[in-house]
């Protein structure tokens, strides 16, 4: 026990651990918002959308512009938060109808390479539209400060994320398991051809799912904008982490993505305390182990 307290002096510090858990959970919630869209898109269309991080980046940049353009009132932030993801959803729709729809029957690796091409195109367009300098979005006044949790300061903006992501998760669950549209999505993840044979307009479903997944990525980016420097390169960072979350949870699994997002969030939060140097390596190492032992992820289904 002495050795443990010596190695990890924070282990007896209850309040610190509490705050660490909370910040880990809020990171996890962010990750969930971004990853679940990627997982959803894969589940239905079987496309691993590498441009998902780019959608997230566009969401954050749209947030920057909207907050700038809208009058300087308290409601401006919330309007921007509502509109920015819709812009990303529209972008997703254009890409799905204009490009992805043409290659659904092609080799999955060709689809992967195409979405990689999208990363390059979108990052250049963002550079041209917004310039190379980092941008920032100020937090809404009501959430600008920090609250005291068991004596430790905790940024109140993260409370918004901690509250909003579970609402989105519950809403998604209700959509997936309590609506006809959700039933179609779940059916599509199991057997697309059968769904088409039963008279469902699968092409339309694909578009809807891609737009919805893009909207989620945009929401994640818009929510994250006030917490990070909005910069070129955030696409790659988010993509790799979201990718890890989706793979660990199981490609196409909703519950798996939720659990794995929280796990990865906590791991990042505590990894920094325990192994500051290797926390990111640890993340990829866990992903590698999951791929080796259970390639289909914690809660995914093995490939038929």
């Amino acid at each position, binding site marked *: 026990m002495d050795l443990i307290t010596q190695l990890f002096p924070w282990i007896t510090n209850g309040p610190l651990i509490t705050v660490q858990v909370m910040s880990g959970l809020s990171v996890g919630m962010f990750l969930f918002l971004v990853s679940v869209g990627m997982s959803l898109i894969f589940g239905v269309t079987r496309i691993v959308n590498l441009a998902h991080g780019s959608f997230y980046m566009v969401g954050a940049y749209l947030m920057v512009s909207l907050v700038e353009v809208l009058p300087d009132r308290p409601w401006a932030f919330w309007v921007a938060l509502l509109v920015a993801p819709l812009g990303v959803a529209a972008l997703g729709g254009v890409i799905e109808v204009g490009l992805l729809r043409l290659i659904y029957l092609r080799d999955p690796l060709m689809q992967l390479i195409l979405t990689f091409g999208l990363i390059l195109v979108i990052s250049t367009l963002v550079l041209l539209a917004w310039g190379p300098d980092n941008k920032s979005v100020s937090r809404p006044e009501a959430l600008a400060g920090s609250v005291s949790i068991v004596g430790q300061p905790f940024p109140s903006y993260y409370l918004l994320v901690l509250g909003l992501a579970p609402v989105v998760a519950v809403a998604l669950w209700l959509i997936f398991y309590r609506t006809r549209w959700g039933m179609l999505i779940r059916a599509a993840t199991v057997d697309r051809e059968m769904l088409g044979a039963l008279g469902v307009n699968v092409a339309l479903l694909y578009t809807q799912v891609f737009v919805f997944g893009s909207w989620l990525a945009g929401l994640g980016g818009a929510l994250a904008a006030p917490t990070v420097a909005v910069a070129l390169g955030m696409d*790659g960072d988010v993509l790799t982490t979201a990718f890890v979350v989706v793979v660990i949870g199981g490609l196409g699994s909703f519950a798996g993505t939720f659990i794995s997002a929280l796990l990865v969030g906590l791991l990042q939060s505590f990894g920094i305390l325990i192994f500051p140097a290797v926390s990111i390596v640890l993340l990829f190492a866990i992903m590698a182990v999951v791929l080796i032992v259970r390639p289909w992820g914690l809660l995914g289904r093995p490939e038929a």
Partner: protein
Amino acid sequence: MLGARGLVVLLAVLALAPLVLPPFFLQLLTEIAIIGLFATSFNLLMGYGGMVSFGHAAYFALGAYAAALLVRKGGVPMLLALPVAPLVAAVGALAFGFFIVRLSHTYFAMLSLAFGQIVYTVIFKWKALTGGDDGLLDVWPPSYLKSPAAYYYFALAVVGLALWALAAIVDSPFGYALKAVRENPRRARYIGVNVRRHQLLAFVISGLFSGLAGGLFAFYNGSVFPDFAYFTKSFEPLVVALLGGVQAFGGPLVGAFAFKVLEWLISRQWPVYWPLFLGSVVILVIVVLPQGFVGLFGRRPWARSAGSS
């Protein structure tokens, strides 16, 4: 189509280039040769083995860093450091490939990407050894190889030998067995081919030559950076092979030529637009030319093996 013999003729023509070309173009050709080797070794996996790695930059970077570290920290002369580059990369490819070849298709690509990112993060984070984000500078070849023409000849000779070895491997019984594994892994197993061992060996050979390309690039560039291992770098050999054609041995070399010349032409005028251009070309090739660029990319090798493992 460029066979192994056409390659030799091409190399002879290239040997005369320094007599007419200014230094800048020699450097461009040196880079084309190095990237061509990288893409050809990548294509041993994709074109001949039907395995698409999304983390091949890792082996390129392992080679580059092994060579750079030996020269900078160990004081080893370049001619001794360079042969170590492919060996270190091959060891890395063996360790990672052991797990990667157990998976197929999308999962193969994803695990190779995961290992690639591990290599990237280790290089990026291990500041004491690798210099982290700042990279390792001042990794120049000795004075007798420092001029563009001298290093051009040196790189050309090394790349030529490596390509000759790769061509021999492709033409060997091993190469044919590898193609059989690509076409139909199950049938290959029935006739007694050890599928995994062939795939792993191909992976290690590919990593070895990628590491050699990385080592050559380190001395060409005079410095190494963590970006060498980043996942976007892993798409370079893929795009190059795709542009040139994965069915012919010389395809990736043609692709490297087209890729680097286009990059030079466009980056010179509008550096900002290069990724936009590259991304658009990749998308166009995939969407508009399903049968591939210049007819070389005729038959997608992995399509036949889809669904079985």
